């Protein structure tokens, strides 16, 4: 923690609903101050405005339709970008060239060339690039990592993870031009990042099956399963499918099971929840009872920038997720395992 100074943050685009979670965390964080927001779609700022209205001490937030105007503000030191995936690269590069640190929503971008350009732009501008992988900051994941790092289960030998969700039926998530893909693009990155974080190893080989089966009319994949090998011969598998029923009690899950030479550990990031069922409406929902992983993601990002160090989750971590995504799509297209590096 760097004294009592707060990092001035601008929120760019609310295309992805996660931006509202990040804004909520920024409003709660002593180390952060929300000073501006930008979105070309006025209605997408409604939730932020509600959050601000509910806080008597809410900061004055300057609002723009064009994010480039936000970038012109000297008081903005860092930005949180939650646009559609296809816009991540240009917005990040623009922000870096304006001297702003960047926290970019996952997946980092569409192509590896974009990832390299984003990383280079931030490096050249002397600003930090973070990737928003909040699952690392889920309390159960954090504690599991501490146990693994302490050697409790020995060296990791095998892993299985899931990141399920109810199906998307509309919006940019199912527009391949704006999303770059469906459930593989959206969901393997959380599990892949956790696996990389726990093992310190990179994905070496991927065989993927993917298709559009839950909602056959949409233009992107909505079910998939990957069998992977990580460096060191670690076996892994990931199910990122948007295959849960619409009335499932949870928004989704992020589950990981790790087998080590001396034991095993498994956890579900969203597992600490209360299930609420309403008789009249039939609505079923879950209420997360764990501490907010978004809060700790933003806390790490802000404290790192203020201390002049890189955030825990870097642009390179985001690039690794993009690499796994592209390998999975290539595997599906070519019907064979794709080797990225020696296993």
């Amino acid at each position, binding site marked *: 923690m760097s004294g009592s100074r707060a990092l001035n943050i601008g929120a760019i685009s609310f295309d992805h609903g996660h931006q509202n979670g990040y804004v909520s965390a920024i409003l709660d964080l002593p180390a952060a101050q929300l000073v501006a927001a930008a979105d070309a779609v006025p209605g997408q700022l409604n939730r932020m405005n509600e959050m601000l209205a509910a806080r008597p001490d809410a900061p004055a937030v300057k609002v723009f339709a064009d994010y480039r105007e936000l970038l012109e503000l000297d008081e903005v030191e860092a930005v949180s970008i939650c646009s559609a995936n296809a816009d991540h690269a240009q917005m990040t590069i623009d922000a870096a060239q304006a001297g702003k640190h960047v926290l970019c929503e996952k997946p980092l971008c569409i192509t590896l060339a974009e990832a390299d350009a984003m990383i280079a732009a931030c490096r050249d501008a002397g600003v930090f690039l973070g990737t928003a992988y909040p699952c690392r900051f889920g309390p159960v994941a954090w504690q599991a990592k501490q146990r693994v790092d302490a050697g409790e289960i020995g060296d990791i030998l095998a892993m299985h993870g899931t990141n399920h969700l109810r199906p998307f039926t509309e919006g940019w998530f199912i527009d391949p031009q704006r999303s770059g893909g469906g459930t593989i693009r959206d969901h393997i990155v959380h599990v892949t990042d956790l696996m990389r974080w726990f093992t310190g190893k990179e994905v070496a080989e991927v065989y993927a099956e993917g298709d559009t089966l839950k909602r056959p009319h949409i233009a992107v994949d909505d079910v998939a399963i990957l*069998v992977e090998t990580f460096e060191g011969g670690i076996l892994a598998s990931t199910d990122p499918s948007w295959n849960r029923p619409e009335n499932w009690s949870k928004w989704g899950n992020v589950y990981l099971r790790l087998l080590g030479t001396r034991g095993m550990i498994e956890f579900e990031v969203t597992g600490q929840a209360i299930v609420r069922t309403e008789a009249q409406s039939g609505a079923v929902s879950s209420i997360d009872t764990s501490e907010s992983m978004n809060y700790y993601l933003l806390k790490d990002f802000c404290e790192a920038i203020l201390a002049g160090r890189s955030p825990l989750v870097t642009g390179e971590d985001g690039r690794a997720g993009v690499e796994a995504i592209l390998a999975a799509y290539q595997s599906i297209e070519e019907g064979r395992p794709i080797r990225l590096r020696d296993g």
Partner: protein
Amino acid sequence: MSQKPVLLIGADNLAERVEAYKRLFPPEGIAILRPDGANAGRNTFLGVPVAHEWPRQDGGLADIAGDVSARAVAARQAVERGMNAIIHPPFGDSRANAEAILAAAGGAVRVALPIHYTHKYEAAASSARAGIGEIITVRAIRIFPPAQAWQQSLFHLMEALALLGGPLRRVYAKAAALKSAGTDTVFCNGRYANRAILYGEASAAYPATYSKEVIEVTGRAGMVEYDSNARSVWSASESGVTLAESYHRTPYEKMIDAYTQAWAAEVDAHPELPDPRPALRAYWAAMASIERNEVETV
């Protein structure tokens, strides 16, 4: 009830098999056959006699497990003695060989398919077929302490996948020796004939205190899920014995009963008996995938 001899060959799940036969057949007719001379000095085991040679009396039933490479030979020996046989898979040295063994036996040899008679799998499969729409994904995870040959664990994984989602179209499998000198873990994914995506995992590499069995079938209009770690029955005592499953009739008992009733009715292709071919074909495709690190057509 038959007065013909019942011979159990091979140590895999022997206690469970003996118990099932004891409940279905006169105990005095049941024996454990050790034709290799092992435990030659032992006259009884698990409360039944230990025989060291095949019976001279014709007829009866042989239940064949044990050394995977010896199962097909034992089945042929049983049939030559006029016996029916339940052969625990895998057996034979290829898919073609396995199917040829069954064809040659003309219904006298049936493949043990205990997954088909395990209530949670039966219930999950029938529930999935009724009311969740077209199946789109299946996950089957079976993590248990080592109790049988890894090939047998792989077969039962394939049996589970075939029961839950139907015939497989292709499979990709990776095997590893994570904790043992030999293979103890297999991951696989692939496709069903209807394009649905499958995931299977079998492992005997986890700590003895941990087990996990997941059955998950998702459809366009719903999903069916089972997780053994959300047990309906859970008992743990200082003896270290845990009870996580409860049966009136065990899967083996139900399977043996169904098979013997079909033989008694002299029905070669009993319509209510499960077809072993989807699981056999998936198993051999998975073995080939492991061997070549390629996707294999089933």
